[in-house]
């Protein structure tokens, strides 16, 4: 199996098409690499400039004083093939073609892309793209993209995507977050996937100490058997969430058998993902939520959920979603029920979901939350916790953040938190920043994240 380190974690980078022009992709990408503090040498390749952003420019790749690991190609489509040949001639180990206008655009583009593939296969050059926003690796300070990310931090989530601008949209969204940010440290967008593929990526992240959780957006799996075999091994320590659209595309074909008509790629893939323990996200929200849960939380020990809520309706909604998601409702221990009874009126028996709104009236918000939530977290039958809490007026209390932090640390169980309530919601969210507690906008998002987490880890 080949090693894609020169592509994903290069020691040196050249940019063919680098310029000082901030309105051009090549200008923005080079600017981002410089601003991102790439740790190795950066070589702008430009026929006319002598220096770009303080870096010595070279008219051609051949004149660069070393064999570089990675070359970004940001040129008009008709010049790309020649640039790839230059990479091979100069002994570069990898190239990433940002330029679009290949198989996604036209029949001619398809032909041009096929020639790129042949060059890569014949020479051993690792090729990403074409039609990609580029690659990011916070560990080596590589912000190799024409998308302007507002800030960058390293993190345990590694992305592999087979898309054009979608990755840019998702990454921009993730990077712009100020609270509850998904800790993405690496993002490898291979665009039209001319060469480097998801299997290469799995081999890389398997040995990458910084990668803790893997997110894949792919439109096809090139070699399903090898992919699933590797995924089965990798997921034991690094859970995988996959987003592959086209779930409803009509897979029906004329066939002698019913099986032939039913066997759409999507249905087979769906079965294989369950079989190999890869969680399948339905949309981008689902994808990011599942990854955030996996990145922030410990692994679940089972699939029994304890639901705590201060809204009866949200409790029932949560129950539906949990069960539909393949999880189970935990049966509380007698000790748990006894502790819950202490904050409820005589006429109300505790149950799962545990609705303790009335306890706020009786005991005040701090004691109600502390006693109720502690009982739920402490129950040995509860593998995962889903809290849907209201934060208005009399439910609000200043120690909320401390309480949840303490419960999270003491019991070390996966918990998904949903908070409803204007100003207090923001305060509660802020109080939990860095606590390893994912907060979700809706009950559905929280329940789905827990379900996907179980699929990816158990």
């Amino acid at each position, binding site marked *: 199996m080949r090693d894609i380190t020169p592509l994903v974690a290069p020691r040196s980078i050249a940019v063919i098409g680098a310029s000082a022009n901030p309105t051009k992709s090549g200008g923005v990408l080079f600017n981002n690499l410089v601003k991102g503090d790439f740790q190795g040498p950066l070589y702008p390749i430009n026929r006319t400039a002598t220096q770009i952003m303080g870096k010595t420019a070279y008219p051609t790749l051949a004149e660069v004083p070393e064999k570089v690991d990675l070359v970004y190609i940001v040129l008009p489509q008709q010049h790309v093939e020649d640039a790839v040949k230059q990479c091979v001639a100069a002994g570069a180990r990898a190239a990433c073609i940002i330029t679009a206008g290949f198989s996604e655009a036209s029949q001619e583009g398809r032909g041009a892309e096929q020639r790129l593939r042949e060059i890569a296969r014949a020479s051993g050059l690792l090729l990403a793209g074409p039609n990609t926003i580029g690659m990011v690796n916070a560990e080596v300070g590589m912000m190799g993209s024409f998308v302007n990310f507002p800030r960058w931090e390293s993190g345990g989530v590694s992305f592999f995507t087979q898309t054009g601008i979608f990755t840019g949209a998702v990454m921009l969204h993730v990077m712009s977050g100020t609270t509850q940010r998904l800790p993405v440290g690496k993002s490898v967008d291979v665009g039209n996937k001319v060469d480097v593929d998801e299997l290469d990526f799995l081999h890389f992240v398997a040995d990458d100490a910084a990668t803790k959780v893997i997110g894949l957006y792919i439109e096809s799996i090139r070699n399903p058997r090898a992919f699933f075999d590797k995924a089965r091994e990798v997921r034991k320590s690094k859970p995988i969430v996959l987003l592959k659209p086209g779930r409803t595309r009509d897979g029906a074909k004329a066939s*002698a058998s019913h*099986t032939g008509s039913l*066997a759409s790629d999507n249905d*087979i*893939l769906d079965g*294989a993902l369950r079989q190999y323990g890869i969680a399948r996200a339905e949309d981008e929200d689902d994808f990011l939520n599942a990854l955030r849960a996996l990145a922030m939380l410990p692994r679940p020990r089972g699939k029994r959920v304890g639901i705590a809520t201060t809204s009866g309706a949200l409790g029932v909604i949560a129950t539906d979603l949990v069960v539909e998601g393949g999880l189970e409702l935990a049966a509380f221990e007698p000790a748990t029920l006894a502790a819950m009874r202490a904050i409820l009126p005589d006429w109300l028996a505790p149950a799962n979901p545990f609705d303790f709104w009335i306890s706020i009236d009786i005991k005040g918000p701090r004691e109600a939350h502390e006693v109720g939530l502690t009982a739920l977290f402490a129950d040995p039958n509860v593998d995962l916790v889903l809290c849907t809490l209201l934060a208005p007026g009399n439910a609000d209390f200043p120690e909320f953040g401390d309480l949840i932090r303490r419960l999270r640390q003491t019991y070390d169980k996966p918990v998904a938190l949903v908070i409803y309530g204007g100003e207090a919601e923001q305060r509660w969210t802020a109080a939990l920043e860095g606590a390893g507690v994912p907060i979700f906008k809706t009950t559905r998002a929280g329940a789905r994240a827990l379900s996907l987490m179980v699929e990816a880890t158990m």
Partner: protein
Amino acid sequence: MLTQASDDIAMLIAAAREQRRNVLSEPEAKAFLRAQGIPVPPGRAIPTAEEAPVVVGEVGAPVVVKAVAHQLTHKTDVGAVIFPVESPAAAEAACRTIAARVASHRPDIALDGFLVEAYRPAQPEWIVALRNDAHFGPTIMFGLGGIYVETLRQVSFRLAPLCDRDIEALLSERPAMKLLSRARGLAPADRGAVVDVLRRLSDLSQQRLIARDISEIEINPLAVTENGVLALDALIVLHP
């Protein structure tokens, strides 16, 4: 036993190839399944309607009578399956009715004869299949079968070979599969016998001959009763 079965399927495949067809007839497919230890109803194929009463005598009424023609893969669509047939005379008449229906709906098809089998109802009907997918390789499908299989799509796939855990998951993935456990008005189902069929198909998927020549083995419907399973219909498609 296994070698014998392999030889048999090799002969069936060779015969089909010689006749330039890529579908095995139902009697051929059932002979293969029987050799693989997957139960099929008692009965046999006959070349002419006159022989139907003899088979009824052998297996006992009621029987089901079907057209045999390898081109005819969706037999019920043209009325080429009649059941339950209660007497030897009625079986012979059923053969003639089927011949007439096929002649009027599909004049392009030449009947090879008829299959007369003991009639065994299936409620519900299940489908199991091994399919060598061009992209994913050998896959196993299980689900609710019968003629509504494509409408309801209560089926699931797994990549073969299957481990016990895969089989267990496959048998409980879709809502309709609850009918396999227990349901009002239905006889209890021999879940173990279904597991056994899936295991046999999974083993078959790993045999070279199967992987090389066979595109699909489909059992639909599979009847699951209190004490076993029966492949009521079967289709084997060869790679083109």
